[in-house]
């Protein structure tokens, strides 16, 4: 019998077999990306092979230094206090009801797997649209865009955030992970360049975890009201958490007032500290005032809001303004 077509059933199956083999081989080769064997977790460097920019951001973030920074090491008496460890080197979060400490790779601090590894898969808030995914992906935006996700470790701040009754308050991720439009992975060679070329850019989050991010409108403002030579300095905290916040370590925000144009340079006039502990912080949405009588001869005041670390080092200026004396 003469056949009108040369297709055979086996021909139809061929592409599927090929596809299956490809999938199988990919999943075999990349299994180390999701595999948890004994104490071994996938390392950040492995993730960084493709997620180049995220890895780079993370390297410079406080999360990467969570374990290695000397203040933490001293505060835990050289990693002696067990209760502190779990949030500074968290194990993957997928089953734990509370953070647990990793047994390996602790020096990488709060690393990729701490947030993104789930059982046999890697989870995140964004749908993958690449040509191939070398690892299974689970999409759970609700979880990853929720402040409570961060609050598993940053519990005090989360408590403040939950208690702040601001309308449309930003989540943790809104401010401390600034938005960016880019592809999920970046090419490092000719092969990867082909694969990345098929990927589309999406709205993502930077993994910088900045302590003092950049805002369009400063959420902490300082204003001065005058009555003669008496100045009333008001600091308004529009953040959805206390100023300063954080549960551990030395957290100090200081208001510094200087006489700018004094004879022979600036002269400090006053300094008020806001400390996290003991009720010194400004709660979310509230303000704090100080009074200051400006000495004669002062023509212009400089007011700075400074975030200070331990020992007064690594100070960061949050807000700065000059005010002429009327």
């Amino acid at each position, binding site marked *: 019998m003469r056949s009108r077509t040369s297709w055979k059933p086996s021909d139809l199956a061929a592409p599927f077999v090929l596809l299956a083999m490809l999938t199988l081989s990919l999943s075999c080769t990349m299994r180390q990306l999701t595999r948890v064997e004994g104490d071994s977790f996938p390392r950040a460097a492995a993730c960084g092979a493709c997620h180049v920019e995220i890895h780079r951001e993370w390297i410079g973030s406080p999360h990467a230094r969570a374990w290695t920074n000397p203040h933490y090491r*001293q505060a835990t*008496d050289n990693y*002696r*206090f067990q*209760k*502190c460890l779990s949030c500074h080197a968290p194990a993957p979060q997928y089953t734990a009801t509370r953070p647990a400490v990793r047994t390996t790779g602790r020096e990488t601090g709060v690393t990729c797997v701490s947030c993104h590894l789930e059982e046999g898969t890697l989870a995140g808030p964004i749908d993958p649209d690449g040509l191939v995914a070398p690892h299974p992906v689970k999409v759970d935006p609700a979880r990853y865009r929720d402040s409570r996700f961060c609050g598993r470790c940053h519990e*005090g701040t989360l408590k403040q955030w939950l208690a702040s009754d601001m309308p449309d308050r930003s989540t943790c991720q809104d401010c401390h992970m600034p938005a960016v439009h880019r592809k999920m992975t970046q090419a490092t060679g000719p092969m990867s360049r082909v694969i990345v070329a098929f990927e589309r850019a999406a709205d993502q989050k930077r993994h910088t975890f900045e302590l003092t991010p950049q805002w369009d409108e400063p959420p902490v403002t300082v204003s001065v009201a005058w009555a003669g030579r008496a100045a009333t300095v008001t600091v308004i905290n529009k953040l959805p958490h206390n100023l300063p916040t954080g*549960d*551990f370590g*030395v957290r100090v925000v200081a208001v510094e007032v200087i006489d700018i144009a004094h004879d022979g340079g600036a002269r400090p006039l006053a300094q008020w*500290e806001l*400390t996290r*502990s*003991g*009720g*010194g912080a400004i709660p979310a949405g509230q303000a704090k005032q100080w009074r200051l009588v400006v000495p004669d001869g002062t023509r212009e005041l400089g007011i700075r809001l400074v975030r200070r670390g*331990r*020992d007064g080092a690594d100070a960061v200026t949050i807000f700065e303004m000059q005010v002429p004396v009327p």
Partner: protein
Amino acid sequence: MIQLPLKNNSVSRFVPLEVAYHLSQAIPYLMLFCTGAAMLGQRLTGTTLVGHRVLSIVHQIAGLVLVVAVAQTLIVSLVYGGFRELLKRMRKSLSWGLRDLVWAAKVPFGSGPGGDTSSGKVRRVLRRMAFVPSLVIYAEVPIAYFFMVMFFPVSVASGLAMMFVPSALGPWIVHVVTFVPASIFLTLHLYRAFVYRKTRLIQMGVLLAIGIIVAGAVWACSFEGAKERAIAPGDLYAGHAEATRAGGCFTCHRWFQPPPDSACLDCHPKIARVMAQKVGYHGQQTGPCRDCHADHQGRQADIRHFDGAGFNHNLARFPIDGKHRRVSCRACHLQTGPDGVTRTRYIGLRFEACTDCHINVHNDPSAADCRRCHSVEGWRRPRLAFDHDRDSRFRLEGRHVDATCEKCHPPAASAGSGPQLYGVGARCADCHQDPHRQTLGADCQRCHNESAWTGRAVAFRHNRDSRFALRGAHPTVACEQCHKPPKPGAALAEATFRGLATDCAACHKDPHQDTLAAACTTCHSDTRWTGKDLLFQHNRDSEYPLLGKHRAVACAKCHKPAPRLADAHFVDTPSRCADCHRDPHLGKIKRDCTACHDEKGWKGNALRFTHNRDSAFKIDALHSGLSCVACHEKQGDTTRYKPTPTVCQQCHLTAAQSLPGQSAGRIDKPDPHLGRATCVQCHAPAVNSPTPDRYARTCQNCHNARYRDLYFDWTKSLADRETRARKRLAGLQRDNAPRAAALARRIAAAKAVGLHNIQLARKLWDDILAESSSK
């Protein structure tokens, strides 16, 4: 067609099925007829050979069986096609005329269809109808058929009506009347069945004889009232028979309803009234009268069914209890009515008050409510329910309980009436005489009670009831000392009790020669004039309170002596310290003595100086255990009181140095608490010897709950280091004393830092351990 087999000479006219059909109707019919005839006959003759009730039940059962049998026959005829034939004959029977009656009358004598005894003709006739049930056979005799058709439904209907509408007169009369056609039908049927002429004649003869005997018996026994007897199930009660003589059956009965209760109640108005008012025994009864009072049970029958002894009197709303049980019915119910006739009466009586039957012997209308004291259990003790305390206005107490009744309730003047129970006076004076000559008023009970007149029983309490309370020594004085009887030896009751003076001077003399203006009672009590019982209290009543050691000083030291203290000086006594005491401070202290000293003593604990009140430095709980010299150094033989440091850091030097990061010459980073927390935030002044847990909570108060754990972590961590360091120190002390001393100093320095600068302390300890282990 069914072939009828002929055997020998006999004629077999019916197939077995037909015989069965015939018997199924004939047997119940005969039973109906016989029982009906028996009941009727017994009634007419007034005899009772077989119980009427038995006959009635058999009669009803037979009737129901016959209805079923006839219905079965009709259904079979419908199914097998004989019904049309039945209808045809029924129509024919209905068109019966006078000629046919004449013909029927001739039948027994040979001109009817049965007159011909030719078996061939009979067989021909019967064969033609053999396929229909035997019922149709009667139709050969139209008169019988007619009667069957007419009376059978009527009889069944009236019989059922008798069963379901009791005592309705219509069905009753109809049913009795149907006995006549039933007899005729049976007679004719038998007549038709007897094929031989002789047999028929015998039958007629027998029937005639029976008729004559029955008629004769009825006439002989009592033809009078035969109509009533024939229909009524029994003779009426004599009274009812009398009452219905004019009205007849319809006095009570109706055609198609049971006799209404109104028929009874029209003649028994008392019952009607109590039932309408729902009182008495009948007031509680529901249901028709005949349920209890069925009549037609004979002239003398007791249709009241009243059992005097067994009557449940509770149903008459008058429970018979106690002694009433032993009283015969007639004792109460034998009454003389308004008609003047005395007989037992039950209906419409009311026994409410006891006096309806009993006489009030107390001669007082207020005693009419007997039940206040008496019960049905009996009139007298011990059944008397009367309790003098509860039921009379006069409670019996004290001696009154023992007094005989007659003392207050004199026996009756006339026989037949009880003692005087009412109207006896309740006041004391009604029975008792007043020995006080009426000086104390008429109300004896103010002082006396029922237990006795004199002694302890006198309810008079001098302290409560008189203006002069007896206190102290006064109660021991005999009454007669103040209340003197009119003449010696007279009873106290006759003495003067009112108008006596109450001031002290009325009886006592003043030993102070009038130097003290105040009243005697300011200083003296009733108990005694002198000593401890003196009411005067120096601290309260003088301008100079005696406190502390002044209390031990003898009175005469200040109140200059006289032979008796009562005669001494009590005014213008010295009152300033210097009047009696010498100043040991030689005038150096300008303040008044009392600023620091009081009467308790000059020195030591008696000193009134209070550090917290009188100095700038308050001794809090933390400092409370310290001795004075811990802060106030002795310099030679004087103690330095000024200037004394008041700021924490001035005394607590190591802690003050540790916070900025200094310890034994070493300079390190300051503790974050420096300048941000004050000493008292951690070291609460109010808490002496604080526990570690308290410190931990102090951390938690400013930071968070996890700092509590951190506190313990750090204390344990530093304590571990100290333990190890001390172990090494112990080792060194054996080997190298000078180095051990140096190590001990460093350990002391590290320990002094404590938690005031944790990182400094950690470094100090780590240095000690590193150094001592390297060597």
